[in-house]
């Protein structure tokens, strides 16, 4: 096999995998704080993309200048969602709360394109389209930027969970009632997680929106983010990183090598197989914490 | 109701024999060579400080944490490699230290599941309920009503199990275990969180169960007054090691036991 070919596939795959991990990061944050899997994470990413487009095209800001505005707005949206919707569900069974986030996803999918239009929007961050060449290997610049941003955010999250605030968040995810009993403002902790998730979602939406254009399909990254988050272990940030790389590289390599043989888009299936197998071998994902069950 | 002097080890075959059981978790040796023998109809006490391995012992017997070394024999059968549900089928029932009732089910249904191993439930009987499942349901229901009567749970029969008080929940768990008609009943701290009166009730139920069904009982309890009164034989563990075994009154007087477990404070009496 041709090394340059495999190398190019692997590198671009890894970068895309990091991007998936960025979507997954929001899911993991919220899960760690509240034990809820946020199915609206994809729709939040879509919203971030739309808001960026609106800021850029309506307020006339250049793409990159709109970014901080959008991140702030999405932080606020995350907080608002927690305050208005999720807070009232505290203490309910996780599956119900997950369903509520699905409701949020559907609503955002209606509201946002309803207001700004469902046709695909152009979002230009000023990232050049010319590829970077690594010897014979062609690396997508936008992926490079996206991968770097994801990596930075994920590392920041790893650091964060070592701080006191991080411990508090972990405590909240362990036992909300106990957290209340020792004076932790559980609502604030969860709201913070939602706010940050809004930011990571917006980053994802903006980065990918600049690659493919902004429309509702950005919300489909939910599935990839979810897969990566679960593969890594829903409550593990470092796990995200590894899982993102695994999924990205595998999708890319297997897709590249197998598709010509079987004549089909095997990528999604391969990702599905990897997830299935990994979860069978490691039931709590690669790095997920084991549920402590004392009998 | 005079149990055949179970303290004498001359009784022919023990029902349960644990021979030099060992079990560790990671680096922690939770059980270091523990052996016990329980005879039919005997109430065997197992005490020790928190974390001394009592629950682990129960888990080793019931197949949750199979021993790393040593052997468990029940009614002459080697339990090695058997899954918990297979062991349950052989006639061992237990309750849990931290209640493990099925939430979302009524008290009645919780006790009815105790009959599981005497039933043959499946999807098809349910599909043809009137002729297939109903007769069996009613038969087992009658048995369960006896248990309910026995443990005086009539009032709460139809309540969802999670809303009744803890003490009653413990009783329901006992009822569930009894409904299985076990030969060996393992009770892990059945009286935790009970007041005097409730403890007396529970004590009575345990004795009655033994007397009525001839069940052997392995009892873990921190209430020493209860333990000394009910058990025929007592084993004390600390750090996974047996430090004393024998007649309960005699055992609790040993200085080692007092030092490691009892202390000398006021709770001695309680």
């Amino acid at each position, binding site marked *: 096999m041709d090394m340059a070919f495999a190398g190019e596939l692997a590198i671009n795959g890894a970068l895309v995998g990091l991007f998936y991990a960025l979507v997954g990061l929001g899911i993991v944050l919220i899960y760690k704080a509240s034990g809820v899997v946020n199915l609206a994470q994809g729709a939040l990413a879509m919203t971030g993309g739309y808001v960026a487009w609106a800021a850029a095209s309506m307020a006339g800001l250049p793409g990159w200048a709109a970014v901080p505005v959008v991140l702030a707005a999405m932080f606020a949206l995350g907080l608002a969602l927690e305050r208005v919707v999720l807070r009232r569900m505290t203490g309910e069974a996780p599956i119900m709360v997950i369903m509520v986030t699905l409701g949020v996803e559907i609503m955002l999918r209606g509201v946002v394109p309803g207001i700004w239009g469902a046709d695909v929007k152009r979002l230009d961050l000023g990232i050049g389209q010319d590829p970077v060449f690594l010897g014979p290997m062609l690396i997508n610049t936008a992926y490079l930027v996206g991968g770097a941003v994801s990596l930075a955010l994920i590392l920041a999250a790893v650091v964060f969970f070592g701080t006191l605030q991080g411990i508090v968040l972990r405590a909240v995810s362990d036992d909300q009632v106990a957290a209340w009993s020792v004076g932790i403002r559980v609502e604030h902790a969860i709201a913070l997680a939602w706010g940050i998730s809004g930011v990571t979602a917006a980053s994802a939406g903006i980065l990918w929106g600049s690659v493919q254009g902004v429309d509702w399909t950005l919300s489909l990254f939910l599935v990839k983010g979810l897969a990566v988050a679960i593969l890594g272990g829903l409550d593990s940030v470092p796990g995200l990183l590894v899982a993102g790389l695994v999924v990205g590289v595998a999708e890319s390599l297997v897709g*590249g090598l197998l598709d010509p043989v079987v004549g089909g888009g095997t990528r999604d299936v391969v990702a599905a197989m990897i997830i299935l197998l990994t979860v069978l071998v490691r039931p709590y994902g690669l790095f997920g914490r084991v549920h402590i069950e004392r009998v | 109701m005079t149990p055949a002097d179970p303290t004498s080890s001359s009784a022919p075959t023990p029902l349960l024999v644990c021979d030099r059981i060992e079990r560790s978790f990671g680096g922690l040796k939770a059980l270091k060579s523990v052996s016990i023998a329980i005879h039919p109809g005997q109430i065997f006490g197992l005490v020790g400080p928190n974390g001394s391995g009592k629950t682990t012992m129960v888990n080793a017997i019931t197949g949750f944490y199979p021993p790393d070394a040593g052997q468990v024999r029940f009614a002459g059968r080697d339990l090695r490699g058997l899954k918990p549900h297979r062991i349950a089928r052989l006639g061992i029932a237990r309750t849990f230290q931290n209640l493990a009732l099925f939430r979302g089910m009524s008290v009645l249904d919780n006790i009815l599941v105790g009959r599981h191993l005497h039933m043959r439930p499946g999807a098809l009987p349910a599909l043809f309920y009137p002729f297939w499942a109903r007769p069996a349901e009613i038969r087992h229901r009658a048995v369960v009503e006896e248990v309910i009567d026995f443990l005086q749970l009539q009032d709460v029969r139809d309540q969802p199990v999670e809303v009744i008080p803890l003490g009653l929940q413990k009783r329901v768990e006992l009822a569930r275990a009894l409904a299985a008609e076990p030969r060996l009943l393992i009770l892990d701290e059945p009286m935790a969180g009970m007041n005097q009166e409730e403890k007396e009730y529970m004590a009575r139920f345990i004795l009655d169960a033994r007397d009525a069904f001839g069940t052997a009982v392995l009892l873990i309890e921190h209430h020493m007054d209860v333990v000394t009164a009910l058990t025929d034989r007592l084993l004390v563990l600390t750090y996974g090691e047996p430090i004393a075994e024998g007649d309960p009154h005699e055992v609790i007087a040993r200085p080692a036991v007092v030092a490691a477990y009892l202390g000398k404070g006021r709770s001695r009496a309680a």
Partner: protein
Amino acid sequence: QDADTVVKFGMPQDFTAVYTFVTSEYNQGQRDYLSLVNGRGGVGGVTFEALVLDHGNQPQRGIEAYERLKKAGVLTVDALSTPVSRALVPRAMADHMNLLTTFSGRSDAADGTTFPWVIPMSPMYWSQAAAVVSYMNQVSEGGLKGKKLAYVYIDSPFGREPLPVLNALAEADGFELGTFPYPSPGSEQSAVWTQVRRFRPDWTIIWGGGIGQTVALREAVRNGIPRDRLATGVWLSESDAEIVGREQAKGVLKFEAVASGREPKIIADILAEVVAKGKGAGPEEKVGTAYYNMGVGMMAMVVEGVRLALAADPTLPLTAERLNAGLTSIRDFDAEGLLPPTTLTPEDHQGGGAGRMAAWDGTRWVAKTDWFAAHQDLVWKLVRAEAEHYRKTGE
């Protein structure tokens, strides 16, 4: 009752899911054209009404909308969605409802004898692919013989559809065909394009819709595929070029079955008589886009069918049966230059399969050829075989 003088068309379409990239423009064109005709007093004593519903690309909602529209008395249903159209075929066939599957739906529906009630009225994907290859064959020096052609497609029945045509033509024209599927919806295609680059194609065809197309176009550019050697079917629009970058997209080729731009007379008329009076069904800037004009063109054809039906028998109300007969008697209709001259017959529901190649010049689509149809013998061989297969097995 004057209800008899109103002819209703059902437009259950996908405004919220997979087809969002086309539906609103297409539907705007359809309704603006009906406004134009109504503004002029209608045709043969009837005026028109469009009943629009969203089915979100979900078959069950499409079926509900279909049944509802049927009850409302529509004479045609245009679902603009492959899955929904497929789910409607058995019903339309049983109910004798004109199911319009313009630019969507099964290719073998071109066979009117097998599918009397399914009317594509537009070049099916097989015809489109054949035309694209035939164009490439013409403009390459020495034809396609010995050349390499890459086909990069969305891995769905729609994307796989051209494969038999391409394979047959590869054999006939002597080029090497490389096929590169990417999974739906195509947000991420880098691995695919790495392979394409290594295949070193002389020509590349991309086949997808919406973001799949923009991402493909971007990746093609990035991987150094010359844009004037890159072509696709009807699903590439001004807004796609906009997203990729007007300049970056320059030169890319597409097959168009309806003229784009504002020059065609009907579009100019709409601007003057509908939009200028504030009766436009959508934003003015969309008037004259490729998808908008597709909506106009197909509606023009349906209205022409109504005209023919009423010319043959002016009794009102008009029925679906008579409209079907009217539609299949359209001869050389070109909607004043908007369409290639189109002839529909009870046997041929496709209408000739003609279109033309157009290139993006940085601001608009510019025609590179005249209207032409290619390899219709081959296409019809496939159509007949598939239709035969359907009749035999129901597949």
